């Protein structure tokens, strides 16, 4: 009996040492091979003139970056990136918070509505693109038909074909797809606001708006911030919609930096130069990533 209890902890401790490495190694191996190594390799590629067809693998130093910054279109890519990211996430923030407040009310079929509201999140990006391509079709699209019929427009608009509306339309489609996720994140935070706190504020004579301002806003603010940064990172990197709907056009009217990276690498076949754009993108985003990690870890601590 005594010997058993004495042997127990020692044996357990030895096994523990094996369990953790065994359980973690597949994940760590995958991350090393398919994330860390490609990351370093992408940086290396950006200093070479590697082509898609496996051509020369010569070291060209900073040439890719020099020609990238010298490109007269680069400021447009940057501006488009900022407009796309800030526009899309801005809409998601405003409507996401409003949506969360609505979903937090008590109403019939609330559970079903919450589920249905999230459907765009679970939809393939190409399908979102296809649906909106059809709804916004200049000749047969429902949106143009409705808007001209109620008299808001005189003639149908080619939403994606016009350099002035292409990017803005993409932003709206992105918001349509992204608002539900934002709303659900904020909703989770709203549900964690202690009801007693709100109740006692009310008995102290606070009106709806003051309860919202002094109780609700401070308690959901960390989540809103984290979601905001997370969405900024995701949206900045998100090129599926633009790739399918406009291909970056008309001209370069809706080309963002990551899209240009992809097009350079796989349409022009210049992997090295494409990697250059991606490295610039990653450097800019590194700031946001650092903020995100800071915010989440402060939360945990």
């Amino acid at each position: 009996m005594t010997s058993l209890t004495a042997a127990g902890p020692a044996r357990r401790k030895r096994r523990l040492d094996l369990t953790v490495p065994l359980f973690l190694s597949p994940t760590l191996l995958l991350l090393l091979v398919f994330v860390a190594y490609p990351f370093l390799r992408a940086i290396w590629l950006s200093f070479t003139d590697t082509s898609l067809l496996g051509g020369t693998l010569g070291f060209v130093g900073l040439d890719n970056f020099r020609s990238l910054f010298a490109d007269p279109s680069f400021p447009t890519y940057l501006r488009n990136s900022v407009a796309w990211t800030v526009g899309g996430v801005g809409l998601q923030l405003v409507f996401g918070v409003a949506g969360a407040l609505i979903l937090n009310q008590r109403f019939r079929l609330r559970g079903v509505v919450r589920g249905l509201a999230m459907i765009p999140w679970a939809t393939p990006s190409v399908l979102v693109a296809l649906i909106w391509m059809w709804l916004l079709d200049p000749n047969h699209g429902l949106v143009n038909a409705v808007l001209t019929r109620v008299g808001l427009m005189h003639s149908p608009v080619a939403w994606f074909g016009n350099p002035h509306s292409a990017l803005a339309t993409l932003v709206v489609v992105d918001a349509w797809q992204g608002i539900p996720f934002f709303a659900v994140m904020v909703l989770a935070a709203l549900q964690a606001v202690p009801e007693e706190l709100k109740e006692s504020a009310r008995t102290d004579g606070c009106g709806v708006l003051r309860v919202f301002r002094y109780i609700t806003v401070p308690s959901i603010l960390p989540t809103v911030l984290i979601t905001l940064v997370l969405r900024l990172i995701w949206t900045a990197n998100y090129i599926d919609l633009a790739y399918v709907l406009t291909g970056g056009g008309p001209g370069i009217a809706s080309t963002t930096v990551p899209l240009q990276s992809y097009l350079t690498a796989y349409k022009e076949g210049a992997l090295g130069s494409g990697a250059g754009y991606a490295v610039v993108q990653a450097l800019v985003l590194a700031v946001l990533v650092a903020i995100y990690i800071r915010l989440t870890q402060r939360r945990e601590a």
Partner: protein
Amino acid sequence: MVVLERALPTRAGRSVDRVSVPSGVALKRLLGRPALYVVIALWMVCTLGPYVVMALTSVTPESQLVAYGMSRLPSQLSLRGYAELFSTTPFVHYMVNSAVTALGTVVFALVVASAAAISLSRFRFRGRTTVLTALLVAQLFPAVLLVIPLSTMLRSGHLLNSRPGLVLVYVTFATPFATYLLKGFLDGLPRELDEAATVDGCSPMQMVGHILVPLLRPGLTAAGTYIFIFSWNEFLYALTFTSSTAAQTIPVGLQLFIGDYEIRWDLLTAGGVIAAVPVLVGFMLVQKQLIGGLAAGAVKG
């Protein structure tokens, strides 16, 4: 949106607000219940309307679509879009590739992620926080940065244009979030259970196998669904790493169709409906757990 519109004027005159709004007023009373239902109905129309239009388009005769688009309801139902999709296009191949890739990813990623989640939730060891941060950061890398080196790596491993190659990449990128989801679930299971098992003489392996895995089942369902949705919907990697019907998935196929069948909206939307059904059904079945896990995973870190 209405929430904000209504809230702003009141905030301007705070004294009015205090007089007219008695204590204990919820947002819904500020809005009024009918208004709340109107807003929710509008939201649902904006969210679900596009899917309804897509489904209706897929059963509208082609001749009517060419003449009127979707401005009229279909005069008769036609399944020709679906029939042609299966008889004249390689859509069946895309479906098989999507299903095999997604299910393969679910199996592998669940094993990898639950092992990682168990070690991160149940054991304390040096480097644990580093691993958690690494998982977080791995999700934030721009896909366009990794896609270029990954494509050259897969080519040298003869894994380009193959379903196993795609599965490997998807497992890598689905695992971090699935791990967080499962870890959150495990953290909610009382530790007394595994302590009791260990006291009863279970080895860590037995404890995991007999106690944790059975209890983890609901978490595995949610994580599995997340992984399925992720791989079924993924576009950029599939687009880059596949080049023939041997491995192309539904999103890639749909994107090709958009170019090839530009005016065949009955056919395109039929493909869209088939692409949407599995993920949306899966999502609705586990939406409650998944939404909860999503919110916790991204915010808590």
